């Protein structure tokens, strides 16, 4: 990790807070302080299991402390948080109330920095971000829970799963705009048109020469063949559908995907079967 020059700070308070941290983790956590020259990272904590076997987890930490037991927040440097964001694994931000010997922590992962703190490293470069510490952030002495929280792989893999599953769906505004266009064309049949769009997207590639498939779509929408032809013509002329000879496709697949999602949410998957 790139390190930033350390500024002056109360040495006594710092050593007291490190002592509290070391005591809390006991022989299940080996704290190693880094050179006092650097400010963005204070040290690392190596964790052990019950049998004192290394867990191969090294936690990089920034340790902040206060003498005021009523203080529940701390202003962290955005510059530092940006550095943590660039790191492949999260850094732990400890906040220690020295008189009460209470330890609070947050896991400053990419997700936490960008989604919870809403910091965009591209645009936020200076100032501070105040992080509030609540009961949920209190270190209870349960080291296994701490390890589970920090379990980098599982933690971050969960994020990955969520990111892949929702690969940038259409925004609400895009769908609202689309629906405005449709209602301007055929106000009374708008719902049917949404359904046709969703189903053409679902069954794509759809060819007009595939009479069975076109009829299947019409049946699901609950319309007859002639009405289907009429609506298709309307949709073509409004630019909602495109065609290459007999191949029909939706103009905006993302919106059609969202329409399908809404229809299934209402009618269930059996609607398609």
């Amino acid at each position, binding site marked *: 990790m790139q390190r930033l020059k350390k500024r002056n700070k109360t040495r006594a308070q710092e050593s007291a807070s490190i002592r509290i941290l070391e005591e809390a983790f006991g022989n299940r956590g080996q704290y190693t302080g880094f050179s006092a020259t650097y400010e963005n990272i204070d040290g690392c904590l190596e964790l052990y299991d019950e049998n004192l076997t290394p867990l191969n987890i090294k936690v990089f930490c920034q340790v902040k402390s206060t003498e005021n037991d009523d203080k529940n927040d701390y202003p962290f440097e955005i510059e530092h948080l940006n550095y943590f964001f660039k790191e492949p694994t999260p850094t732990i931000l400890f906040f220690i109330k020295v008189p009460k010997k209470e330890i609070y922590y947050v896991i400053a992962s990419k997700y936490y920095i960008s989604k919870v703190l809403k910091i965009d490293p591209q645009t936020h470069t200076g100032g501070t971000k105040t992080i509030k510490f609540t009961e949920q952030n209190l270190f209870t002495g349960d080291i296994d829970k701490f390890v589970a929280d920090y379990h980098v792989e599982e933690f971050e893999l969960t994020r990955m799963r969520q990111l892949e599953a929702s690969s940038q769906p259409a925004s609400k505004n895009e769908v609202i705009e689309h629906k405005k266009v449709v209602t301007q064309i055929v106000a009374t049949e708008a719902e049917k048109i949404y359904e046709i769009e969703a189903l053409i997207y679902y069954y794509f590639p759809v060819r007009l020469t595939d009479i069975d498939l076109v009829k299947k779509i019409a049946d699901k929408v609950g319309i007859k063949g002639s009405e289907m032809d009429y609506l298709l013509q309307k949709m073509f002329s409004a630019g909602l559908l495109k065609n290459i000879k007999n191949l029909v496709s939706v103009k905006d697949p993302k919106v059609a995907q969202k329409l399908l999602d809404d229809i299934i949410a209402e009618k269930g*998957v059996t609607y398609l079967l």
Partner: protein
Amino acid sequence: MKKEQLSKLASLENPKTLKFLEEFALEEKEKITAAKSNEEIIQSLDLLDAIYYRVPAIIIRVVYHLLYKTEPIKPTVERTNWGTLEGKTFSDVQVKCFELVRHIRYYEIDKSITIAFDFINSTDKVLSSIASKLAEEISEYNHHVLPKIGTASQRKVLEFLEKKLSNDKSNKFNIYFIKIALHHILETSSNATTMTSPDTLTFSHGDIVGSVNIAEIRERAIKIVINILEHVESTEDKNSIFGLIEQACRMPMNSPRDSDLGKIIQDNRVFIVESLRNITFLQEKIIQPLWFCLKLEHLMLWSFIHIELQVDIGKKFLSSLYKDDRYKLFSRFVYDDSSRYIKDNVIEGMARDTKSDIKNYLESIAEKKEEIIFEQLNDIATEAFKVDEWKYLVFKQLLEEMGKSKPEVAYTIGQSSIKERAYLSRPSFLSFLLSGIRQVERFDLWDNIAKNIFKSKDIEILSTLIGSMFLSANAEKSHIRKKEDFNLIFDLIHRKNQFKFYGKSTNTLRHFTMNVLKVLFSISPKKTEELVILEIKNNPEYLNGYLQTISMASEEGGFNLNKWTKKGKNFLRKELLKLNDVDWHIQSILPTFCNPEEILNFFINRIKYREKLFGEGRYFDSPGRFYDPVPYHINHELIEFTKKDSKIAEKIAKRISSKYNSHSLEISQFIKNFGISLEEIDNALYKKEKNKETALKKTIRAIYGMESNDIDFIVGLAARTSNQRIFADLYAKIASTGVVSGEFGIADAYRGKIEALEKYTDNENKNIRDFATFSIERLKYSEEQARRDAEEEKEIRRVDFESNN
């Protein structure tokens, strides 16, 4: 449900769909468990693949069940009129399982690593290769994945390996897995490909960012490598793992030396050299094999001194290596000479000088006992096959020089190595020692050694004897004794007298024998020709190798085929028929003993020979090696030589049939590949055939492919007929597009042909007008179809791309 529709459902977010997909996956899991055929399993796996990121836990259970717990299901067999057809194999099922694991590798990372580890050494090559791909994909730094999960994947692999190594004390490492995984973990760059539009694939490449995490990961990986290097027993494995050390020392390509990444690697290099020192020396004496030290020397020379980075570390290590007398001697005669590229920073012992090193050693042997000399030389020879053979070049020179300047000593060393079956007695060494003895014409010593070799009845040691004849004759032809050496080779090939105890020749012995025959041929061609023929007859399975040697020797003037007897030439032509492929070298010898007509006959005979093989049901000699009567690539000199015969077109015309079959196809390929003029063939056929329509049909059969500039020729043929069936045949030649490029490539090719034909639509010849109209109509229809297909394909790609991005 179709795969495409399932994949659309998987992209939706509503809970009803997600619940449905889970239930669907469980149903497919049940179907797989109850399946009776591999087809059913693959079909279900294919459907699960469409929704992999929604149900990774179910998929991994299915895959585990199939890979570890399922008894292989035999392929279904169907008897048809064309023979027995087999369905999907269980290996196909396993391959499909791996495809799924590759997709869910980040979701089920622990189990994915285990699967890759367990199957990477599979005897099934396809499985092994796909498991290695999986190991690679889990361990590599992927540009897209790094921002999402960081180095979690690499850390998991390290955790897995550390656990394996600490649990297994047998020192039996899964080297293949370790090598692939650590190779990627020790990489300094990350790559990724992204579809940035439906038609654009963007490749990203760059160095990873040096961070505390990367430092920790590299350190852990290097510790594993050092641990294995210290304990692994097999030379091959040790050699293979050493590559990881070289990689770990390599500086990043695109980052400065003082970047965070550069500093991490410099720290790694210090650690590596210290660790290597610990495992290489014990109280300043080398405890590693000499070949390993040679690799260490190369590492220090190139990765430290040559790139002028941490030079002192490299120099210090090298000094320690050169202090060891055994290595010092070894390194004088076995090396890759890389030190000569290093101008500065030279240290004592680093530079080599072939002549003086050999001279010094030969001078020093006067003071040494012959046993010591034998031990020293054999010690060096023992490391062979662990070091690339070309690095032994100077050592071989030393042996040859010893034979020449100290033949008596060389004789004793030679006798000892034969007696003890020492490494020094291998053909690649002893041949040089014996060649030196021959070069100073100490045939008395050579004959004595030969007697001992015959007594040994060891065919490998016998090769050294024949090899020395070849090597000495190579140095100077006069080193071959006309009578004694000819008799010896005669007896060898006939397996007479002292050779009657030897079995089949080895590759080395065959190679040496043919090369000695090459020299003997220049002394006594007729007698040697008989020996060559017998040698080939004795080992028909190595025909290709023999012919290659004859071909190359003939080019160098060694086997002048012109001097062969008629019987010998016929023998060669007959043998050449049996070759699957007449390659470039063999083509080059044909003009040396065949006239153009004989060359034509030779290829016609090959076509007939293929028909005979087909008749016997022998399509392939071995998988993928089919008999190709007329090669695609023809030697330019052979083409020019064949064309010297002004009547070659007429001679080919006689061979052309009006029927469409493999025979006429091969002849048309001969015409095309030899560049014989179709016009000349057409003229010859027109003159020869009474029935002009038959002549036309035969000309059409002579056309193999179709180039756009041949359209005029085809249209010219159409002028001679109004027969619609012949029009269709001619149209087929025009419609063939050959290789095209671009998404509208086929459509554009048709368009080009239409434009080329349009000028004929108002031709004064009615047949030509009719044929042009006939062809244009069909080409327009084909063009329209091809353009529509391409546009549809493009639209499908757009919808697919926009849905997924």
